[in-house]
C-alpha cells in the first residue's frame, strides 16, 4: 500500500505529535523554520503554528532554513528546520556548505513522504526515501528515525548534541504524527 494513502485510522502504531513537540521544547528550540510537509502538517506544523512558545518562520524554499538557522546559531538561538525529504534533497548544497563544511548546528526534522513505516527507510518503496539515509551517511550527518512514540526520546539528546558539538543532525519522521 502506498503510505501516502495511509490515514491515521489505518495506522495502529502511535506517534504522538504532542510528544514530539514536547521534546522539541525540551531541547531549547525557539524557532521553527518550515515549508509545509503533508507528513508533519497536522501533527506538528499546525499545532506549532498555534503555540506561543515557538516563533514560526515560514520560508519559500527549504534551503533558506539552513541560512536562517545558521544566523540564529551565531546568536545562541536554537532552531529546528521542519521540511519534507524532497526539500532536504533540494537543499543539499546549502547543507553541504553551511552545515557540514562550516560545522553549523543545523537540526532538520524531515518528513518521509511516501514511506511505508512498516519497513526501514533504506527499504522504502519510494526511491526518494531510500536514498535519504545513504546521502546523510555520505555527508557525515547523524540521523535518527522517529517512527513511533518510543523513538521520541531520541530527539532531545540529538538536538543537544548538535548544538554542543556544532554539527548538523537529521531526525527522520517515518509516519504521520497524530494531532494529539
Amino acid at each position, binding site marked *: 500500500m502506498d503510505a501516502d494513502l495511509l490515514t491515521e485510522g489505518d495506522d495502529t502504531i502511535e506517534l504522538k505529535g504532542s510528544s514530539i513537540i514536547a521534546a522539541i521544547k525540551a531541547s531549547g528550540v525557539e*524557532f521553527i523554520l518550515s515549508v509545509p510537509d503533508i507528513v508533519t502538517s497536522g501533527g506538528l506544523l499546525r499545532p506549532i503554528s498555534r503555540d506561543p512558545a515557538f*516563533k514560526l*518562520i*515560514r*520560508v*519559500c*524554499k527549504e*534551503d*533558506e*532554513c*539552513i*541560512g*536562517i*538557522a*545558521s*544566523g*540564529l*546559531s*551565531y*546568536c*545562541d*538561538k536554537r*532552531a529546528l528546520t521542519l521540511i519534507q525529504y524532497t526539500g532536504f534533497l533540494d537543499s543539499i*548544497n*546549502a547543507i*553541504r*556548505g*553551511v*552545515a557540514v*563544511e*562550516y560545522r*553549523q548546528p543545523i537540526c532538520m526534522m524531515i518528513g518521509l513522504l511516501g514511506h511505508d513505516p512498516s519497513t526501514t527507510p533504506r527499504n522504502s518503496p519510494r526511491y526518494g526515501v531510500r536514498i535519504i539515509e545513504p546521502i546523510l551517511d555520505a555527508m557525515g550527518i547523524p540521523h535518527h528515525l522517529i517512527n513511533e512514540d518510543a523513538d521520541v526520546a531520541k530527539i532531545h539528546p540529538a538536538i543537544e548534541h548538535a548544538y554542543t558539538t556544532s554539527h548538523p543532525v537529521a531526525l527522520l519522521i517515518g509516519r504521520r504524527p497524530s494531532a494529539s
Partner: protein
Amino acid sequence: MMKRDQCFRALARHVSDEIVVATYSSAVDWLALGERALNYFSVGAMGLDSSHALGLALGRPDKRIICLQGDGSLLMNLGCLVTIAAAAPNNLVHMVVQNGTYEANGSHPIPNTKVEFAAMARAAGYAHVHEFSELANFEQQAAHVLKQDGPVFATLHVERSKPLTYDYANLYDPARRAALKAALRAT
C-alpha cells in the same frame, strides 16, 4: 553609474556596531575597508547571504544587520524577499549590488541584466525600498537608509569592478566565525 567600492566606502562611514553580511565580490570590497569582528562572511552557499542575515536579525533584534548581496546571489534565492518581508525584522537592511554579472564566476551576465529588484522587494512587502545609481545621492542618503525601520531594501546600481583577487581561505577562515560569535556574545 557608481562603483561598488565607492558605495561601500560611503556606507562604511555610517557603520559602527552593525553586523555586515557579505559574500564573494562584495565581501572582498567590504573587507578591503578594514577588519572588524562583526563581519559575517561564512555563508557557505551562494544565495543564502540574505537568509543568514534574516537569522541574525531574528536572533539579535537589538542589533542592526546589513546584508550586502550580489545580484546573482539574490537571483538564486528570490523567495527570500517574500520570507524576509513576512518575518518583517525591523533591524534588517538588505542591499543588492547590481552589476549585471556573476563577477566571481567569470563575469558572465545574469539572465536579465535589467531585472528590477527594487520592484520585487516592494511587491514582496519590504517596509522601505530604495534605488541608487548616483554616488552623490547615495552618500547623502546612506545614513538615513541605515536608520529606517526595516526590513529596508536598496538596489545599488554599479559598474563591473576591476578584476578582484578572491582569497577564500582568508574570507572564510574559521577564526572569523569564532571571532564573530565571541563578539556577539560580548555585546
